[in-house]
């Protein structure tokens, strides 16, 4: 392979990847425009909001428009999924999360324009930092390489440290930022060390290749010799992810940071930032366990040719089946990066697994199976502990933001549950594993709405009361009945009461647990739901049932904007609680790509 040919391939790959990366490109352009507008039109106070909103909305539209192409991806050779020579992976699950990020950002910017947290002269910076962080999250959603895992985490993390300390006048805000940055740096360091261990023992940073090498360790003694390093590496990698997810025991930053920083920043940190960590966890797990644990389908030639032409792929790259292993066509062979190619089509459907993958392993199962069990156990423990601790700690909180901080810890636990189920079933029941992943995607989508609503409530109430203590909100229903009803709906949804969307999310998560047989986790989840009742219900009780204080009784009613915003969120929870089929179908289609 001569150099020129290689450069030619690289150019084609970069061009194709950039097209798939277009939404992120739009976000970058928006950031530039924001900075320019700050320089050229500093007097236009509202302009940054509009710019950011339009930019994010354009990115959202671009991402949504990509969906039909992405939906065809499982029919394309694996090289089509990899982008930027295998650093990123463009598939429907990643796109699902990217769409969520952009959609959330659009709503979030509207919300920010309503509360106007950053001082007018700093709006541009605030939004640039926010968008930079979203960019990092998008990289996390598509990462297929440990390098990108770290890069994405840092791209999302560093701007959020600054956002946490954005209210310069408050000491608590600065403290929060410093704490957050220190914790973030430490966990990133640990994670980086874990990555080196993994890379050292598996000889690559490319996740599917690592999975491939892992699956190739069929000699039990060799595996046993390297297992300690592998386990240590995995655990250290998980430290970084757990920090980002605010899972116990890496949650210590959460209450302080949420209490110290503005509610708006909390709304960001507790929602999409967590969703990014979750998808990253799924990426790492699916890469290590064999991303192609699916039954490959041979594409319809005509459809394939059409799809291939969209991605500038030669039409003869259609995969062929050879001895039970699907291999890329001749053109794809030439096209691909050496790292990517061999991984792609190791066929691992359930029938082949018994005959090929399993026969040469010890009684304990193949290394990949062992890793799957180990990962599932670790994630399950993280989930159980986060859930229980978060709920118990939230019980005693008086500050609304602190309460929500612990509530997000608990929700991180619920979110991890279907992932644990998926990892446990990865090798044995890939179809069900994807169902579980769809459940976790559904949970994330619904959780974004609920938690944005909850934090928006704190922001609106903070603006009205100059207080974040729950007891100060007593009798709020007398002042703003519609707003209080919306808040009650959001709280009931966070508990997981039907017919609200929170119930649907929990239902799907719990159902995936029953599929995988993680009964203990299921019971823990259910008991936790009961515990969580106490503190969410207390918020509702204080706002609705308690007698208003004199200060509250004298308050003017809330502005129309705030009421509308929360009412729309609450209504969407109600609608999603009844008509959740479309969202779930979409999530299932997204998870089908893995």
């Amino acid at each position, binding site marked *: 392979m001569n150099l020129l040919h290689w450069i030619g391939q690289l150019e084609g790959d970069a061009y194709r990847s950039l097209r798939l990366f277009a939404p992120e490109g739009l976000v970058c352009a928006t950031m530039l425009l924001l900075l320019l507008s700050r320089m050229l039109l500093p007097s236009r106070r509202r302009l940054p909001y509009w710019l950011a909103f339009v930019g994010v909305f354009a990115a959202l539209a671009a991402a949504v428009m990509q969906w039909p192409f992405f939906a065809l991806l499982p029919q394309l050779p694996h090289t089509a999924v990899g982008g930027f020579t295998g650093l990123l992976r463009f598939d429907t699950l990643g796109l699902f999360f990217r769409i969520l990020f952009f959609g959330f950002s659009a709503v979030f910017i509207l919300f920010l324009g309503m509360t106007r947290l950053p001082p007018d002269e700093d709006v541009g910076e605030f939004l640039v930092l926010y968008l930079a962080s979203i960019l990092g999250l998008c990289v996390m959603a598509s990462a297929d390489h440990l390098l990108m895992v770290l890069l994405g985490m840092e791209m999302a993390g560093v701007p959020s440290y600054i956002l946490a300390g954005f209210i310069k006048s408050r000491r608590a805000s600065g403290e929060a930022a410093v704490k957050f940055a220190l914790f973030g740096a430490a966990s990133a360091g640990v994670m980086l060390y874990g990555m080196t261990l993994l890379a050292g023992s598996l000889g690559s940073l490319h996740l599917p290749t690592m999975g491939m090498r892992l699956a190739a360790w069929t000699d039990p003694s060799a595996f046993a010799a390297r297992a300690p390093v592998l386990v240590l590496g995995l655990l250290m990698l998980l430290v970084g992810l757990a920090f980002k997810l605010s899972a116990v025991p890496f949650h210590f930053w959460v209450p302080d940071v949420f209490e110290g920083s503005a509610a708006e920043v909390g709304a960001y940190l507790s929602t999409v930032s967590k969703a990014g960590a979750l998808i990253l966890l799924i990426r790492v797990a699916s890469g290590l366990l064999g991303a192609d644990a699916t039954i490959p389908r041979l594409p319809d030639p005509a459809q394939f040719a059409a799809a291939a032409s969209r991605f500038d792929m030669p039409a003869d790259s259609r995969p062929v089946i050879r001895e039970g292993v699907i291999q890329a066509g001749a053109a794809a062979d030439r096209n691909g990066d050496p790292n990517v190619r061999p991984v792609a089509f190791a066929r691992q459907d359930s029938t082949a697994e018994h005959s090929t993958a399993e026969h040469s392993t010890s009684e304990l199962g193949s290394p990949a199976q062992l890793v799957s069990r180990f990962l599932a156990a670790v994630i399950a423990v993280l989930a159980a502990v986060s859930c229980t601790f978060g709920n118990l700690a939230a019980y005693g909180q008086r500050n609304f933001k602190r309460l929500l901080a612990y509530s997000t810890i608990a929700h991180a636990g619920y979110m991890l549950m279907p992932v644990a189920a998926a990892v446990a079933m990865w090798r044995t029941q890939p179809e069900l594993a994807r169902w579980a992943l769809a459940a976790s995607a559904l949970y994330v989508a619904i959780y974004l709405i609920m938690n944005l609503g909850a934090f928006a409530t704190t922001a609106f109430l903070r603006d009205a009361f100059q207080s974040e203590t729950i007891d100060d909100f007593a009798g709020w229903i007398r002042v703003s009945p519609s707003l209080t009803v919306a808040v009650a709906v959001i709280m009931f949804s966070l508990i997981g*009461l039907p017919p609200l969307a929170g*119930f649907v999310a929990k239902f799907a998560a719990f*159902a995936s647990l*029953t599929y995988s047989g993680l009964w203990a986790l299921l*019971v823990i989840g259910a008991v936790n739901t009961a515990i969580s009742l106490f503190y969410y219900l207390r918020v509702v*009780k204080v706002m609705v049932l308690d007698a208003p204080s004199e200060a509250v009784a004298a308050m003017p009613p809330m502005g129309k904007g705030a009421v509308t915003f929360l009412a729309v969120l609450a209504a969407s929870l109600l609608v999603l609680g009844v008509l959740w089929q479309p969202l779930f179908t979409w999530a299932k289609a997204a998870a089908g790509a893995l």
Partner: protein
Amino acid sequence: MSTLLLVTVFLPVLGLPLVGRRRESARLASLLIVTATLLLSGYLAFAFPAGAGEFAVWETSWVGGRFPGVDLRLGLGLDGLSVWIFPLSSLLTFTAILVSWHAVDRGATSFYRLLLILLTGMLGVFAARDVLLFYVFFEATLIPLFFLIGMWGHEERRYAAVKFFLFTLAGSVLTFLGLLALAIYSAQSQPQGVLTFSIPHLTENLMRLRANGQLPLTVQIWIFLALFAGFAVKVPLFPLHTWLPLAHVEAPTAGSVLLAGILLKIGGYGFLRFSLPMLPDASAACAPWILILAAVGIIYGALTALAQRDIKRLIAYSSVSHLGFCVLGFFALNPLGLHGGLLQMVNHGLATGGLFAVVGMLYERYHTRQIEAFGGLARRLPILACFMFLLTFSSIGLPGLNGFAGEFLILTGMFERAWLLQRGELVLAVAAVFGVVLAAWYMLQLVGRVFFGELKEPVQGGMEAHAGLAGAEHVTGDHYRSQGWTGDLTAREVLALAPLGVFIVWIGVQPSFFLARMTPTLDALSRPATRASRSEAGPATAAAEAVDAAERVANRRSAFGRAQTTEGDPCRYSAGIACGHQNPPPFTD
């Protein structure tokens, strides 16, 4: 019919926008909506053909998909279990709105809207044919009631509302786990493993699994206990009843009426709908323990009621006792007990719902519920006293009224079981009989103190008592409250109570009409559990003969025009449909 059922269930919610801002228009609109719902649900119930299995089934896909998938349906339908409780929900809501007519002045719009949401929740619970839909409606009843108690209740309302909510929801989360486990187990039986939540499919699949021996007793018991947690809180069974008196006492009258009349029935309904048909072996195995709890509840509730000074508290504890009877009937696990238990749930709804309404009317007049504050009211309020007597007699099981029919069947069933199994359960049956006696004691004592003897009226209302007596028709709402008006029942209040009275008498004189519509479903659903319970009686031959003989005796003796059955036929309790040949149903018109 099926569309009509759909309309009936959602009519109250669809009517929400009609409930206007002003109190007068709000209560009128909600009354009209509830009346329409009542007429529709009454029509559905009386159109229900005797001997039918299911009726007015409406079903459509909710969330579905290919493997691996879930099959959730939006399915509604009536059958023998729900046919009477379903219209009872509308009837008691009708009463609840009429008794709140003047009592609720603050936030009336929200009050009536919540009542309407609650009504849809209750109707939906009893009509749901899908487990998840059932659960959705089940929880949907909690939220309105939480606010009804917490916002319009009496002094301790906040604590009561929170306690009620926490108890019920904590239990129901475990119930949800149990239901989920049932669905998963049933999915294993199917080749494609579709996770179905449709109640009939689920029952069928689980029975197939059980026949193949794939539903071991240990699994059944675990799931049974999970289901039990929620249902027992809701009933409430003895050690889990502590939320009930508090919630009842603190709730506004409408809340108490609906809580006692309908919402407690969801627990018993859950036992009949899920536990018995889906987990028959576990039901049979756990029955002795549950019977003990029920019997303890009967006696404990009755004794506690005897000691109460607050009328509402007394009736609340009497509910604990009476619902113990229902559970006793269910877990006697024979047709007599089951019919009695189900009938008694309806009876208790009518009687206790009515009693709470009457107490509410007294409270509206005198602003107190202390027994010793009253005396000789029969002379002052003769119409109210008449209703009170009727409801009391129904509650203590006077022959000729509905309570007798239910309690008699339950006790017969329990004695039959005790005699067959020879396990000392006779003690429980006898205890239940004592419960009846105690019920007569505390209820008659209450009536005697409040309505007979020397006239004694609370000071608070007594001052203007005579002023108010003159012109009952001209009294407006606010006037009514501020003047402490103590006249007899108005037409509105009579309208609230009269339908209850009609049904109390009707069920009392012609229970077979009501029982006949329950029989087919009840028999089909409970047959596995009944059999499982019988097979526990002992080693096959001798005991089985004894069982059959005893059953024959029981059949001949059984009350209320049970038709001649073919003896020794295993299908004797079925409607004949399931077994492929025709038998007359045991209870006919």
